[in-house]
């Protein structure tokens, strides 16, 4: 069964450093998403992406964040200058079309020191 994969599973970084979280969505999917879950809190929507454009973003997704689909398979989330409060589990998801089920990856646990 096709699945969404994410790398790395864990990332530790120093405050102020740039990180790139990578995701490989399900191959025939066209809609891509990033969510995050700060420890002990809700899973929160960050951004949705379709046709090489951001279609929706939350207030969390400020100028420090960016997303990209650099090739036909990867979907990345970049945090330019990490802050302590960026420590969280980051989930990538994809769906075949708008309104369809979103399939989630296993997540990347980011720890900012």
């Amino acid at each position: 069964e096709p699945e969404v994969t994410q790398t790395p599973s864990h990332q530790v970084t120093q405050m102020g450093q740039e990180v790139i979280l990578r995701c490989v969505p399900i191959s025939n999917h066209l809609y891509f998403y990033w969510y995050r879950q700060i420890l002990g809190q809700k899973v929160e929507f960050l951004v949705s992406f379709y046709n090489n454009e951001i279609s929706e973003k939350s207030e969390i997704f400020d100028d420090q964040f960016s997303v990209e689909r650099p090739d036909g398979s990867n979907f990345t989330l970049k945090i330019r200058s990490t802050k302590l409060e960026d420590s969280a589990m980051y989930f990538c998801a994809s769906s075949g079309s708008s309104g369809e089920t979103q399939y989630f990856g296993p997540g990347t646990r980011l720890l900012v020191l």
Partner: protein
Amino acid sequence: AQSVTQLDSQVPVFEEAPVELRCNYSSSVSVYLFWYVQYPNQGLQLLLKYLSGSTLVESINGFEAEFNKSQTSFHLRKPSVHISDTAEYFCAVSEMDTDKLIFGTGTRLQVFP
């Protein structure tokens, strides 16, 4: 604004007992409703969803949920749980004109032998 409330952060239950995980939502427009499950060290997996039609929806592993519009609820039930059902369960909602999922805080179901 949308919100999802899962009142029970933890639900301990013995194997073969029935269980109900509660979910209430608030929204001013029509919504889609979802239950996702997260097993230890894994990503979020869709358990079941309500989009339209019959208000009672079922999963392949014996869970069911009923959409109650008047009570704005989407409680998850199973008549007889197994040890393998031990996991975190997340209720989520999206409005019909957006793909953004709004999650509850999750309920940890712990099944004891």
